[in-house]
């Protein structure tokens, strides 16, 4: 069972997924503490914050890769404890992990459908629908602007950006209701980053909820509806798009005091 | 002495045993077979594997090679039955050696050369009685070899005292020695150690010294170290099944059969042992042991 349910336009109030005061510790390290976030259908939630702020940790909770330590996690308003990413996928939640979650030695198309393979036939004769998986993977990648010479190529031999594009194409394809992207644009060229941003907007327009983690306010601002700021595992604030400008967002992310340095630096090297 | 047919008939005899390469006992058997081959102008191939499935394969290979005779040791007769019978059916004469005396004729072998392990054990038990032993540790060095178990049960049959088995690994003599030491320490009433391999006899004497025990050591099989130890009175006696003859005789028999139609043995086994090497005859045996033929 993969992200099977057809997109369901968000019933106004109920968030597709919601975290209420969740926390998570690794041994004595508190990676996340009392953080709340909600993802509404047809909205993009941007998660921003410094390195080590806890973004990936929040993502791993939302995507079912890790259980939350404290707090509450709701899917469609129902308190849920996702025990595996598989379960998350069954709820129509798909994720691009920061480490991409690809298997380097496996071919591109096998990675694309990993865990949600298409099959034909029944019983002992049930087998992979290789032709279909290849053509879907190929089409989806082409759509991202990636032209691979060979889908049989082990994904580990792709360039960093190509690999990331495969992971994004995969999540966009399987995310029936919620797509979570952890720094998807980090390694991408200008063209590919543009395609990803457009994909995010398009998914939003189709009524999907999107969680978008990024360090880049200039990527976040154009697509985001809500901005969640994290710092040292704590929530620094949630802002609706109308409440904040891209400059303010940048300032908050950089930590107010360092703003002057930053502007000066930006001023010296305009790009 | 060359017979008229000797040099020109290109006989090949395959020896297939259950001994792992490097086992000093089987090395002497191999030497005996090779010497017979040289003496009689017959080419000899020698192979060994302790797993009956693999030993069967080796016999099958010899049959595929269309050799003129096969010598087989049968530590596990059931496991070799099909292959031995197939060889006989293919018209290749077979002589069995060492173990498997009881089934030899049934499988269609010409004769058997060896000792009965059980009888050898019984004689050993009597000798230990004579030496006044009351509690003996029987050291088994190959876990799957039923012949070794038979020796210990043979001893148990005639021995008046009590017997316990110790399991060691022939591939690690230093550790085997340690295990024997531990056994002696944990049961100080042990007054005799019986090893079933010449290499372990040396280790056992050392173990007795390490444990500060006054147990006597006896062993199966001979080597020049063992004869020295017997002369030194550190080993009581060695049971000698004369492995050299277990290699030499069957090759001779099979050659005679091929060249002269002789059916040696008359349907009965040929006993190569047990002989005993004691203080009385150790000096004579020592000379041969030095050459790797005893």
């Amino acid at each position, binding site marked *: 069972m993969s992200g099977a349910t057809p997109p369901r336009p968000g019933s106004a109030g109920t968030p597709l997924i919601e975290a209420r005061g969740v926390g998570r510790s690794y041994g004595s390290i508190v990676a996340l503490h009392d953080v709340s976030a909600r993802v509404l259908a047809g909205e993009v939630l941007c998660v921003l914050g410094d390195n080590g702020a806890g973004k990936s940790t929040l993502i791993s909770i939302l995507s079912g890769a890790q259980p939350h330590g404290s707090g509450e996690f709701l899917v469609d308003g129902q308190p849920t404890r996702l025990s*595996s990413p598989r379960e998350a996928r069954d709820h129509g939640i798909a994720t691009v992990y920061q480490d991409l979650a690809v298997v380097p030695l496996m071919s591109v198309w096998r990675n694309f459908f990993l865990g949600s393979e298409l099959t034909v036939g029944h019983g002992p004769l049930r087998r992979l629908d290789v032709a279909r998986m290849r053509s879907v993977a190929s089409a989806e990648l082409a759509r991202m602007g990636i032209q691979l010479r060979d889908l049989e190529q082990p994904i580990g031999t792709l360039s960093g950006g190509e690999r990331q594009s495969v992971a994004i194409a995969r999540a966009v394809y399987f995310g029936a209701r919620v797509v979570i992207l952890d720094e998807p644009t980090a390694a991408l060229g200008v063209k590919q980053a543009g395609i990803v941003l457009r994909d995010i907007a398009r998914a939003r327009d189709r009524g999907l909820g999107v969680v978008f983690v990024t360090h880049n306010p200039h990527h976040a601002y154009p697509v985001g509806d809500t901005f969640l700021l994290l710092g040292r595992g704590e929530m620094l604030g949630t802002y609706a798009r109308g409440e904040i400008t891209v400059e303010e967002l940048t300032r908050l992310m950089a930590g107010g005091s360092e703003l002057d340095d930053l502007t000066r630096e930006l001023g010296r090297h305009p790009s | 002495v060359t017979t008229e047919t000797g040099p020109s008939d290109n006989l090949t005899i395959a020896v297939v045993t259950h001994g792992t390469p490097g086992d000093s006992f089987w090395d002497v058997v191999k030497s005996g077979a090779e010497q017979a081959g040289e003496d009689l102008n017959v080419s000899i191939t020698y192979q060994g594997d302790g797993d009956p499935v693999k030993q069967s394969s080796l016999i099958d290979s010899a049959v595929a090679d269309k050799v003129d005779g096969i010598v087989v040791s049968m530590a596990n007769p059931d496991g070799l039955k099909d292959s031995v019978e197939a060889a006989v059916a293919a018209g290749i004469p077979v002589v069995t050696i060492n173990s498997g005396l009881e089934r030899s004729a049934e499988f269609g072998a010409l004769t058997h050369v060896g000792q009965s392990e059980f009888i050898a054990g019984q004689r050993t038990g009597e000798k230990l009685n004579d030496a006044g032993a009351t509690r003996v540790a029987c050291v088994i060095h190959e876990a799957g070899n039923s012949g070794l*178990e038979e020796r210990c049960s043979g001893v148990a049959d005639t021995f008046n005292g009590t017997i316990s088995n110790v399991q060691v690994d022939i591939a690690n003599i230093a550790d085997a020695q340690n295990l024997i030491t531990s056994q002696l320490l944990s049961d100080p009433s042990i007054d005799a150690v019986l090893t079933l391999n010449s290499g372990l006899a040396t280790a056992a004497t050392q173990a007795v010294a390490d444990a500060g025990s006054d147990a006597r050591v006896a062993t199966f099989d001979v080597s020049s170290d063992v004869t020295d130890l017997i002369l030194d009175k550190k080993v009581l006696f060695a049971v000698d099944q004369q492995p050299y003859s277990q290699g030499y005789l069957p090759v001779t028999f099979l050659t005679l059969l091929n060249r002269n139609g002789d059916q040696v043995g008359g349907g009965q086994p040929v006993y190569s042992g047990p002989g005993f090497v004691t203080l009385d005859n150790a000096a004579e045996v020592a000379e041969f042991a030095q050459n790797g033929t005893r």
Partner: protein
Amino acid sequence: MTRAAPAVSETAAPLGPVAAVVPAATHPFVAVLRRPEIGALAAALMIFVLFSSITTAFLTPAGIGTWLYSSSLFGIMAVAVALLMIGGEFDLSAGAMTGTTGLLVGVLTTQWQVNIWLAMALSLAVALGLGAINGLLVVTTGLPSFIVTLGTFFILQGINLAVTKLITGSVAIQGMSAVDGFDTGKILFGSRVSLLGVEVKTSVFWWLAVTLIATWVLLRTRPGNWIFAAGGAPSSARQMGVPVARTKISLFMTTAGAAWLVGMLQLFDVSTVQATSGIGQEFVYIICAVVGGCLLTGGYGSAVGAALGALIYGMTLQGIVFAQWDNNWLKAFLGAMLLGAVLVNLYVRKRLGSRS
């Protein structure tokens, strides 16, 4: 079947032009040359040509039958072990387990007069249970399977010896061929079929079947995909929803099942089992898999490669005998051949890999 996922992409009206990319961009011949087993195939051919030319018996019908048989017993296990290795784990108890299964049937039938088919079924159940225990131990403790299965290897080795002695009073099963139904079992597991003059033992057909099924599973089924993923990048696999733990446990059970099959093939072939049977073989299986191109680190390899690795091993073992080389040197020859085979394999794969 509620697998509507593709529908999503249909609704997703592509912004850019969808390029019509032909999925099979690679020429089929090139694809074959890239398979992991191509190097092993080259090495196997070399060994075959070598012994065919320097010995007379190797290519005779009887000779072929011998090395095919030898290879088949290694091969069945090597294929199962290869699946497990692709899945990222080892099973050092696999050799001892071939002994356990045979001993169990032997004890049940000769000592307790249990019906032979029932005994075989029980033995299979026990094997699968042992495999599941291995798998569960590995998955739940997170200890390396190398050390866990080494533990079970020692335990099985002890049990095989002690229990057999306890019940039969000896260290080998005797009188098996007199057991009711042994002959019918022998047809399935211990007989020969004449094929183009070569007397082929049934185990060879089992070997072929196991290799084919394993290849099918690996390359054409979901579990196959999961095996590669579980071994190649377990945490990524888990993140993508692959049931890694279940996959690994199943693989340990598969190895145990193969051990049962080999146990039966040996039992019905020589109608006896020794308490020490199979010990020391566990590494031969791993060697065959590695010679056949499996990575020790998991995630890469093939069933056909492992089968070829076993063929190389079996041909070498019997070929040395046919060549009548002094058996004191046996191991040295074997080692040199294996190193040679692995180097040929590496060379061929590097050449082809970089060319394609």
